[in-house]
């Protein structure tokens, strides 16, 4: 199916292609295969690749969200085979090699501080080369912790050790940039999966293209793809999961598809604590698939066992891995489901969630945590913008326009649902799956944020990039609204949306370029 969806040639034609064994035949075959990629997808992958490479090289090292700690984890795992400790260790949050690189490029004070600039003089670079040449071998391997992301499961970091080791020449910055490009590859895979999702849902090529363009031109996602940060693997795991989930719901729960759903879920829980929300989405998927396809009981049990078994295996690995991590032996080092000193209060939680999205009602107490932090800050400002370590912002008028567009989208979706109730009813499994998958992540994010604020009300622990695993659902929503418009108005909206994506992408990169180098 994947080949079919990624191809503009009929599957039969691919199957009957001559299979040579010589290298020349292999090259010919690869070229022929490349030519079968639909032109819009190829162009959008090129768009995504250019953006992510630009971010990878224009954003100075360690300026992505928490990139200091994430790279420290990758390096320690690559050099020693062990993850750094979350709270223990030797007192070195990262290796002395990383510390010297940071010192000579003046990168630490650069994080989040707009008035700072990185080191860029030849003299500093010369001094760094002298220092780098004098460092002993163990200087790469002594970042034992405490590392603030040490509680994360190792999947993303283990994958990143591959580009780390592939870096030629042994230079620190070679390893760093190759590791960033490793993230970029994961990002491109997520864009390709978006095309698969769109191909599953939309018969029209332009609609598939629009949905994929929304993801490929999402400025924050491209920046995240260029950063060393486990969140990008979470985006891929969720996008792949949504694709496999749609296949199950629309075509039935085959063994291969159930294995795929379980694998994507395992990938999510093995990537980050926030990935745990996918277990809820998997249960929803299995429930909807059962109601939709009514398989024989033993088949249903076998299917559930397959998917849940693989996801459970992932959880077991996480439990074993995090048993040695501080956090009272709790899973993910206690980050997820952390209970503060103040007792969990369901009324307070509901009040917080209400005030996150809507104005406070008269009878409500002021929300826990920051009073002016909610929908706009998370769903708009830091979802589309707030690049680098959140300090590179779009101008307020852009955030205002994006907020208006987001609210309009919600109203438009509601209107489409009401006016096409029959279609919604007909496609209820798909609609329910997408809605409940989104809610599963949102519920976990809110409960975790609330728990965290019981201990530290100043840190809402909820930012826009945490929503990026659901970016494919946003793209589907936008495309559904555009498809409901009259054809020419829909085409105009498509053009406007693509232009908006281009403008946001170029602006994000441009503002970051000026912030760091002007």
């Amino acid at each position, binding site marked *: 199916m994947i080949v079919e969806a990624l191809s503009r040639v009929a599957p039969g034609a691919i199957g009957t292609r001559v299979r040579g064994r010589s290298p020349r035949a292999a090259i010919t075959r690869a070229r022929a295969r490349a030519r079968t990629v639909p032109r819009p997808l190829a*162009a959008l992958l090129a768009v995504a690749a*250019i953006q992510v490479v630009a971010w990878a*090289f224009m954003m100075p090292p360690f300026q992505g969200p928490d990139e200091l700690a994430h790279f420290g984890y990758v390096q320690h795992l690559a050099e020693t085979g062990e993850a750094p400790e979350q709270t223990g260790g030797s007192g070195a949050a990262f290796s002395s090699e990383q510390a010297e690189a940071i010192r000579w490029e003046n990168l630490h004070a650069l994080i989040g501080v707009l008035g700072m600039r990185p080191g*860029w003089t030849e003299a500093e670079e010369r001094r760094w080369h002298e220092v780098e040449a004098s460092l002993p071998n163990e200087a790469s391997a002594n970042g034992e912790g405490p590392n603030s992301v040490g509680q994360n499961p190792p999947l993303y970091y283990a994958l990143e050790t591959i580009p780390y080791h592939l870096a030629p020449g042994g230079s620190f910055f070679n390893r760093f940039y190759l590791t960033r490009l490793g993230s970029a590859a994961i990002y491109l895979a997520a864009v390709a999966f978006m095309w698969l999702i769109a191909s599953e849902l939309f018969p029209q090529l332009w609609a598939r293209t629009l949905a994929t363009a929304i993801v490929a031109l999402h400025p924050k996602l491209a920046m995240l793809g260029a950063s060393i940060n486990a969140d990008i693997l979470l985006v891929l795991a969720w996008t792949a999961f949504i694709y496999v989930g749609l296949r199950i719901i629309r075509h039935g729960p085959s063994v291969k598809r159930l294995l795929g759903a379980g694998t994507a879920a395992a990938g999510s829980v093995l990537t980050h604590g926030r990935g745990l929300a996918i277990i809820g989405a998997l249960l929803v998927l299995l429930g909807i698939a059962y109601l939709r396809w009514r398989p024989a009981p033993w088949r249903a049990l076998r299917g559930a066992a397959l998917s849940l078994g693989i996801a459970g295996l992932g959880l077991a690995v996480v439990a074993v891995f995090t048993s040695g991590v501080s956090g009272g032996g709790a899973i993910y080092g206690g980050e997820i489901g952390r209970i503060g000193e103040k007792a969990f209060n369901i009324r307070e939680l509901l009040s917080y969630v209400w005030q996150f999205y809507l104005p406070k009602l008269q009878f409500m107490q002021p929300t826990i945590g920051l009073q002016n932090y909610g929908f706009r800050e998370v769903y708009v400002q830091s979802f589309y913008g707030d690049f680098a370590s959140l300090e590179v912002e779009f101008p307020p008028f852009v955030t205002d326009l994006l907020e208006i567009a987001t609210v309009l989208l919600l109203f438009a979706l509601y209107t489409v649902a009401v006016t096409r109730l029959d279609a919604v009813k007909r496609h209820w499994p798909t609609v329910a799956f997408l809605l409940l998958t989104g809610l599963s992540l949102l519920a976990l994010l809110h409960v975790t944020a609330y728990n965290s604020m019981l201990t530290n009300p100043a840190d809402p622990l909820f930012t826009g990039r945490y929503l990026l695993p659901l970016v494919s659902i946003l793209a589907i929503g936008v495309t559904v609204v555009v498809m409901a418009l009259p054809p020419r108005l829909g085409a*105009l909206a498509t053009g406007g949306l693509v232009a908006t994506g281009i403008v946001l992408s170029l602006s994000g990169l441009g503002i970051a370029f000026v912030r760091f180098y002007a």
Partner: protein
Amino acid sequence: MRSALPSPRTVAALGAGLGLVIACIAWFIPYLTRERDDVSGVPVPRPYFADERVRLNRGSEACLSEVAFDTDAEIVELTALAAGRPSPRLAVIAKGPGYRQNAVIEGGYRPRSVLMARITPPQRSVVGTLCIANRGKRRIALLGTTDIRTVIARATTRIDGVEVVPDVSVRFLSTGSGSVLERAGKMVDRVAAFKPGLFGAPVFLGLVLLLVAVGVPAAAFYSMLSSFRDSD
């Protein structure tokens, strides 16, 4: 019979083209052509949370070590938070291997004023020391930082040879301001610093920038138009 209305493909192209033209006129061109300070380097940034005072008694000298002087560092910028009246004259000394510059900031400035000293930049960038000496009769408090976000810059401050906790906030400027477009080449050279091999080649980075500016809009346009063409 052919429809008099334009095809969806044409309408989409018009919508996207119009959107881009509006963005270029209203945002991109003003943003890229606006005059800006040309920052040559920032040894220690301004504080992130709260201003701190670095007090210099008469005759005292504050020196920042491991400061990089680039070949366009023509102005040393400091901030005076408070000073006795009359506010004292300050001597600014920039020194490194094969490089030494002296400059003076005359007294008489008001509290919370930005002070600027002109220096001649080195022929080749150097890592050295920047000293500020109080040559007046009154004490002065310069803007400094102790907060965790900014005090971690490489430079450390010593007053009369003794390391102090607040670092003096200082930055270097180039006299030529100019817009981002005018300085694009210089900025690409800055991006190239600390990047090994191909990644640090200005040609490669310039090509990436060109692809961003031209390739992203072109490829996105192409994807959209080809999808409508294939649908037509």
